[in-house]
């Protein structure tokens, strides 16, 4: 299976509220909130780290979950977030773009 890379969309606005990310879509001002797992994924989505590494190093240590299951869930989640233009998903590393160069706090 090819590696997947995920990157935060630079057009969104985001802020962590009590460990959960609030995200405002740049496309239509829709507000989303991410649960703690999705927040970890979103924060780690730098475009350079493959999704399987994010799952292995950031998600699995936090939750009592098998790697294969977690990876499948993470991929489904990443594609769903991409459908709302919150994340970008690619089989190639995604170069950083200016507006998303900072990390939401």
């Amino acid at each position, binding site marked *: 299976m090819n590696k997947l890379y995920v990157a935060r969309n630079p057009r969104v606005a985001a*802020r*962590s509220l009590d460990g959960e990310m609030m995200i*405002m879509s740049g496309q239509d001002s829709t507000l989303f909130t991410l649960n703690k797992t999705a927040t970890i994924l979103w924060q780690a989505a730098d475009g350079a780290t493959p999704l399987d590494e994010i799952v292995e190093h950031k998600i699995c240590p936090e939750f009592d979950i098998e790697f294969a299951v977690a990876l499948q869930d993470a991929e489904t989640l990443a594609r769903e977030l991409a459908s709302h233009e919150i994340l970008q998903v690619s089989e190639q590393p995604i170069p950083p773009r200016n*507006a998303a160069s900072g*990390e939401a706090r």
Partner: protein
Amino acid sequence: MSDLMQEVTEKAMALGVPLAVQVDLTYRCNERCVHCYLDHHDHGEMNTTEIKHLLDQMAEAGVFILTLSGGEIFLRKDFFAILEYARQLMFCVKLKTNAVLIREQDALRIRELGVESIQVSIYSHRPEVHDAITLIPGSLKRSVDAIRFLKSLGLKVIIANVLMIQNRQDYPGVHALAAELGVECTLDPTVTPMMDGNRSTVSLGVDHSALREVFRDPALVGDVDEFCAIPAKTGETELEAIPCSAGHTACYVSPYGDVFPCVQFPVPTGNVRQQRFVDIWRHSERMNEVRSIRVKDLTTCTQCSHVSSCTRCPGLAYMEGNMRGPSSQDCEKSFAKTGIPSANMLAKKIAAPNLIQIKTAQIRPVRIQTEQMQPLDARPVAAMSSATA
């Protein structure tokens, strides 16, 4: 407000997070609107470094929605540097501007930086009315041209229309203009006092009949019967509610670094040049005083039938002299909606004869003089009765 936004706001309130902050980057302006509440002279604006430092602190404190306003924000030469930095910190950025200085290239940059919305002040669809309010010939054309650039790039634009005596007839025209441009339009019938307390601008506000007309226009309010309904009886829940979000999930920072609960609520709580933003937000005595007020603590409004539905602005009340008191302009709005006078209006009516009594009392020295001359003269008593009647 969407259910999710409501949920997020409640969570932010429980956690004491300032979810939304307006920062005025300057009070300088290229227009001279007749109703403006600001002093346009620069008394020492924060520089680029200070503003970036403030933005860092605000992001750290959890601020999500950042409104950049003024004055006219595009008069700052470092405006795009500030905007770019704010977006790097991933704020949801809203802009308030008259848009006169926005050219196509600026509109492109605003889009690139992912600004959420741009609110543009438009007072009339007729240049002779709009330009007479801004006191700048040609300003309507330039603002509308900019709205077209912004809109053509897919940006969300909102026209803000303040209703006053000068443009009373024109709000349907402004709404039609907004529809033609494909943008949203809001109407605000409140002209606020100046931030230094000068109330001369308030006299530019529309009268009762104009408010009644506006509140009964279905194009503006939707279901008129619902909008103008007689308020429901106030319950315990309403009395325990907070008057508004100022100081709870929102606050305002002036170009000089002063922090207030809201742009319309100029109670000084601290200055970011001397203290950290979060320390002012959490520990300022005045901010905590504002935060402690519940509807049940309001001096006159708790007796008012409108208390559960009133748009009472605590800042306007503060500028009238008491942050726990009524805001007369909102009393007028509740009255115009329902035809039922507010408790504040009734109290003022009852107080009116008392003023005559005070006048009568001022005549008393004459009575003393009279008594000195004619101890049995009953005329002053008759005069008092007559005046009271």
